[in-house]
């Protein structure tokens, strides 16, 4: 870039104004929402997923996710009973337009919706050099896009591949668990659009949330438990072949 003195003189005040807005911030939108009363997670019920891709489309609409990038996506597993370590996995366009018709054979099929696990001890927030990504007091992993440098350390650090660099904004982008919705008493866009209830928003601090009964009565697992990320995307009926 070739900057003349005139250019710099013009840019400096603009940069100062922009920085001022970063310093000030905007007040919280939902005055009745208390962060300390919530601890958010997600329940994903694999036997209910039909691979329609409604969640992927809803997420793109709600969050203006750029074309070719995904905050949530659906994978289809095709696993033989003898070789569970080498499953055949497809996710054409993240499952956004559905999946090709599968013919029955001697292997098993199932769909696995994937998204940010909103880890309590998230590897992605630990590597951020500037404090632009963090776990909020109510347990949602967020990105401060005004603060992010776009170094992509977090993109590499996420063991679940849930982050990307926004192609236009050049900063890290990811699932916010529809933070702008859940703080207003709505559910996430993917849960709203899911036709079978395969996804359910869960508030672990709400004693009335059905998640507690579900976790008590089902065998539930998180992805990559060996990494001790404190993942809060709980999978029901998770097959051992899922990575």
């Amino acid at each position, binding site marked *: 870039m070739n900057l003349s003195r005139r250019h710099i003189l013009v840019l400096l005040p603009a940069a100062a104004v922009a920085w001022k807005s970063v310093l000030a911030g905007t007040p919280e939108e939902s005055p009745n929402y208390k962060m300390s009363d919530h601890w958010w997670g997600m329940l994903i019920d694999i036997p209910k*997923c039909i691979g329609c891709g409604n969640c992927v489309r809803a997420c793109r609409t709600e969050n203006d996710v750029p074309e070719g990038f995904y905050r949530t996506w659906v994978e289809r597993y095709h696993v033989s009973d003898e070789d569970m370590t080498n499953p055949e996995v497809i996710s054409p366009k993240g499952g956004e337009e559905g999946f090709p018709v599968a013919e029955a054979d001697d292997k098993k099929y199932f769909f696995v919706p994937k998204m940010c696990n909103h880890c309590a001890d998230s590897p992605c927030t630990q590597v951020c050099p500037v404090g632009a990504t963090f776990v909020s007091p109510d347990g949602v992993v967020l990105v401060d896009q005004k603060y992010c440098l776009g170094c992509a350390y977090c993109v590499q650090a996420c063991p679940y591949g849930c982050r990307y660099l926004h192609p236009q904004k050049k900063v890290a982008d990811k699932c916010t668990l529809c933070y*702008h919705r859940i703080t207003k008493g709505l559910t996430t866009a993917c849960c709203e659009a899911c036709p079978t209830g395969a996804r359910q928003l869960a508030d672990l601090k709400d004693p009335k949330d059905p998640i507690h009964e579900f976790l008590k009565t089902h065998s539930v697992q998180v992805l990559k438990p060996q990494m001790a990320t404190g993942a809060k995307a709980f999978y029901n009926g998770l097959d051992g072949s899922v990575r």
Partner: protein
Amino acid sequence: MNVIKDAGHLFRFAGLFVLAFLVFLVVRHYVVPKSFGQYGHYRAAAIGEIGARPVKFAGHDSCEGCHGDVVDKKKTGKHAHLNCEACHGAQAAHALADDPTAVKPVLPDVATLCARCHTQSAAKPKGFPQVALADHYPGLACDSCHQPHRPDMDGGAK
């Protein structure tokens, strides 16, 4: 005497350090955002900014106020557990508008919509209702027999 005279150099140097530290404190005060560190090593105001974004899916409750008849009908059939926007798409522009009649939602295309969920595939859960589109009354629109709000065969009119 010489010793104290020489020590003067050190005092001047120490003074420079103190001055630089004060300058650092002043610059830091202006550069670090006010809310940084309120909850942790990040800008707390970012939480409010992310939460302030507008919604596009209005949520199931927004529909019930005006479309109670459809909601009641839906409750009696197999699509009872479906949210309106699962099929009708994001409708905040319509549902949350001051005058909802001003923004008319586009009706979803039945052929693509039904097929997305109900096309037969071995990958889908066994209990889920699915049909092979080529064998199941080809050429006939789904809603000639199944009304989407109550797809059971005795669904009747919309």
